[in-house]
Structures are given as C-alpha cells and as structure tokens.
C-alpha cells in the first residue's frame, strides 16, 4: 500500500519536473534570443535595400512572404487533391493507397538538405530555373507535400460518414458531395496542416541555400534569387562579424512566425464562426 502511494507521488513529481523542463527550455531559448537580439534592432536593419553595411533584413522578410505564398500555391492544391483521391476515391486499404502513403511518409523523413540537393540538380540545373524564388518554392513544395497530404487525409477521414450518406441519399453525386459537404467540414483540419507547413517554410534554410540562393534584395520576378529570413540569419552568423544582427534577425523571425500563427488563427475563427 505504502509503496504504491510512494510511486504515485514520485510519478507525479516526475511529470511536473519534465513538463517544467520542457517549458523552461523553450522559455530560455526565447529569452536568450530576445535579450541578445532586441538591443540590436535598429532602424537601418529595416531599410528597403540591403547593403553589406546595413545588413537590412527587410528584403528577406518580403522574400520569406513570397516564398510562403508561392510554395503554398504549388503544394496545397496538389496535396488536397491527392488526399481527396486517396480518401474518397480509392478503396480503403487498397495496395495503391498504401504505396502512396508509405512514399509520403518516406518523403517526410528525408533531411531537408537532401531536398536542397535534389532541387539544385533538377530545378536549378536540369530545368534551368537557376537559383531563384521559383526553384526554392518548388523544392519546398515537394518537402511540405507529405505534411499537407497527411493532415488533409486525417481531416477528410474525420468527416463523419453520415454526411456522405446523407448527401448521396439525396441524389447528389460524388463530386458535389466532396466539394459542397465534405471539404468545407474538413477545412479546419486542412488549415491546421497548412499552418504547420508555413512554419516549416519560414524555418527552412538548408534546402533554400541550394535552390533560392542568398541574394538579399526584394525580387521583381520569380526567377530572381532571394534570401529568406532563415537563410539571412545563416549568412549573418556564418560571416562572423554580424552575430548581433543575426540575433536581431532571429527576433524578427520569431515575430513573423507568431504573427502568422495569430493571423491565421484569427482568420480561421472568422471563417468558421458559422459552423
């Protein structure tokens, strides 16, 4: 009796300890970045044009946004349609679905630098797109595709079969059922996946160094080389004498991620307040 009580206590203390540790690590990282970065946030870091003197991050912020938008344009429709095919059209447990699913899982386990290498050989060299916004976003599209497929699949599967039956029983066809009944109910889940994907795009550096390059100006077209915030940070810290600016950039990176998360949550609430 006494022993079980002791174990109970001990386990409780342990869970608190580990939960506390996790939060402490996260808090320390944020604290460390803010302490080291905020004092070095200067107005010159936000000038329109980047020079090696001002090391402005504004072009990188803009490039990051472009990169996110372009990547999502490629990956989200592709991912959603693939998932619709897998969930709504293929038989459950069919061999083909399993192959596609394992392939997607395999893809999500590949280190991003391998994607970078592939992007360099295929998009940059073979297709001749050069180090560019386009090459970078195509590479990242492949990288986040498994994530989008996975989350969309889960979202579609969690739509109750009663909706499908109800729609079919009214004489609605498959296409109408999917687009009018199922997809709208699955959107919150799909949205969650897209937010995760956005996080990966913003945070990615290795794959982009090889495919989008490091040219730190606001691009006027998608075939221009760009430098996203994460890559900008990598360049600054790599050069050695801009460590402070690298920290300041990290603060901006955190801010951008928080902002996008907050905005998308807000947007999601607005859109789905009816449901």
């Amino acid at each position: 009796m006494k022993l079980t009580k002791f174990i109970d206590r001990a386990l409780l203390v342990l869970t608190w300890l580990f939960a506390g540790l996790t939060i402490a690590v996260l808090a320390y990282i944020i604290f460390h970045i803010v302490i080291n970065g905020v004092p070095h946030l200067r107005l010159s870091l936000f000038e329109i044009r980047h020079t090696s003197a001002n090391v402005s991050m504004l072009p990188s912020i803009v490039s990051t946004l472009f990169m996110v938008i372009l990547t999502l344009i490629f990956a989200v429709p592709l991912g959603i349609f693939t998932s619709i095919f897998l969930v709504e059209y293929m038989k459950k447990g069919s061999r083909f679905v399993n192959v596609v699913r394992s392939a997607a899982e395999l893809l999500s386990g590949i280190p991003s630098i391998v994607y970078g290498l592939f992007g360099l050989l295929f998009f940059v060299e073979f297709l001749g797109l050069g180090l560019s916004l386009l090459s970078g976003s195509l590479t990242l599209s492949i990288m986040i595709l498994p994530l989008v497929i996975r989350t969309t699949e889960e979202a579609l599967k969690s739509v109750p079969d009663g909706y499908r039956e109800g729609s079919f029983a009214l004489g609605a066809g498959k296409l109408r059922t999917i687009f009018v009944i199922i997809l709208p109910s699955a959107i919150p889940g799909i949205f969650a996946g897209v937010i995760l994907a956005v996080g990966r795009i913003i945070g990615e550096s290795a794959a982009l160094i090889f495919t989008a390059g490091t040219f730190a100006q606001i691009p006027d077209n998608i075939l221009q080389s760009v430098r996203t915030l994460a890559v900008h940070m990598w360049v600054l810290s790599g050069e050695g004498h801009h460590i402070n600016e690298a920290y300041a950039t990290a603060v901006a990176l955190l801010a951008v991620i928080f902002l996008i998360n907050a905005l998308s949550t807000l947007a999601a609430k607005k859109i789905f307040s009816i449901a």
Partner: protein
Amino acid sequence: MLKCKFDVKGLDLYYSDFQALKKVDLEMSENEIMAFIGPSGCGKSTFLRTLNRMNDIVEGCRIEGKILLDGKDIYAKNVDVNQLRKRVGMVFQKPNPFPQSVYDNIAYGPITHGIRKKTDLDEIVEKALKDAAIWEEVKDRLRKSALGLSGGQQQRLCIARALAVEPEILLMDEPTSALDPVSTGTIEDLMVELREKYTIIIVTHNMQQATRISDKTAFFLMGEVIEYGKTIDIFSNPKHKRTENYITGRFG
C-alpha cells in the same frame, strides 16, 4: 387495392462471402407504412439500403435477384442512381444534418437537382419544413447552424431535407432509436401524416412503434423474411412460431 410500388423478387445479397439476405420476396404498396422488424443483424437495414442502392458504396457488396420500382428494375444498367435516390429518399438512424445552416440543409437537395431560383428555393424550404412539422421551431433561425438543434429537431430536419427533393418513397432506418419518447411521438405522428402523400418504409426495433404506425409488417430473421402481411395479423395472429416468439419477446 393499393398500387404496388416496390416489388422485390428473390433477392440475395452478399457481403464478400457472407450472405446477408436470402431469397427475399416482398411487395410494398403506395400510401402505406411498411415496417421491418427483427433482431439486430437480421438484414432488415441491409434490405432497406438496397431499395435506394445505398449498398453500392459498400465494398464487396453484391446482389442477385430483382427489385422493381413501378415495374422497372432499379439495378438495370441504364438506371441513374442519383435519380433513383431522388425518388427514394432516406432518413438515417442517427440524425445527420450537414454542418450548415437550417436553410442550406434543406436547399441542398433541390439545388443538386437543378433548382436555382431563390424564390423557388425559399418556397421549397418552407414547405418541406412545414411538412416535417418543424417550421414553427426553426422559422426564426433558418440562417443558423443546424447542429444547434436538439436531436429530435435534427431528425425532423433530416426528414424535411429528404422531403425537399419530392421523393415518392421515404425509407427510414430506425429514425427514432436515438431520440427521447416525446420526439419519438412527434415523429410517429408525422409519419402517419406523411403516409397520405408518400410510401413509407421503416426499420424499427420497437415493436410498439410498428403496431402504432404501420399498415404492414415484415419479420426478418437471419436474412430471411419469415412472415409478412397486415400488421394487425402479424401481431395478433402470427402464422409462424418464430414470429410469435419474437413479438412476445422470447428472443431478440
């Protein structure tokens, strides 16, 4: 003599290797309520779902035999399943309103079948909700989500949704089993009213319900129709021992 609506001849149904229905012969007439009773897993729901071909979506499901609707085989090659389901509406065991507004739930069917004019839709929605005896309760909240309604209201909404496409036949798969007694009573009254205009076929576990509302009853057991006829005869004077055992509660 009432006009025969559904005429089922020698229907066998298989789920892969398992035979779920064995040589079912049944006739269902217009403006009648036909009840299917029987223990769980006896095939009555499966049979109901062959009448609007909902089993088509089930993998490994295969049927033999014929189901004639107004003399025409509904499993013939040239049959448009969507048109069939427009004629043969269905209400499910669990209320399944779409996660949309009350109005959109009802308008979904008519829009599917090509009605686009706002004034026409308004009219259909109001009529369907009135026919399903729920208009008074929802007329002020047509634009609000249907998921905010109570279970009984949701089920009547689903009945209204089925009526909105003007079916000839209404299939109901244990429509009150998830509802409280008051809602059940409302829906039973509604079914008796709807009989004037529709052919109603209902699966029920509740034998009192079958006696209260149905004109004819079929008793299913292990995939076979053991007995069918006028409800009053089945319950007062069953011909088969197994029917008698079931309705007197000796098993099932």
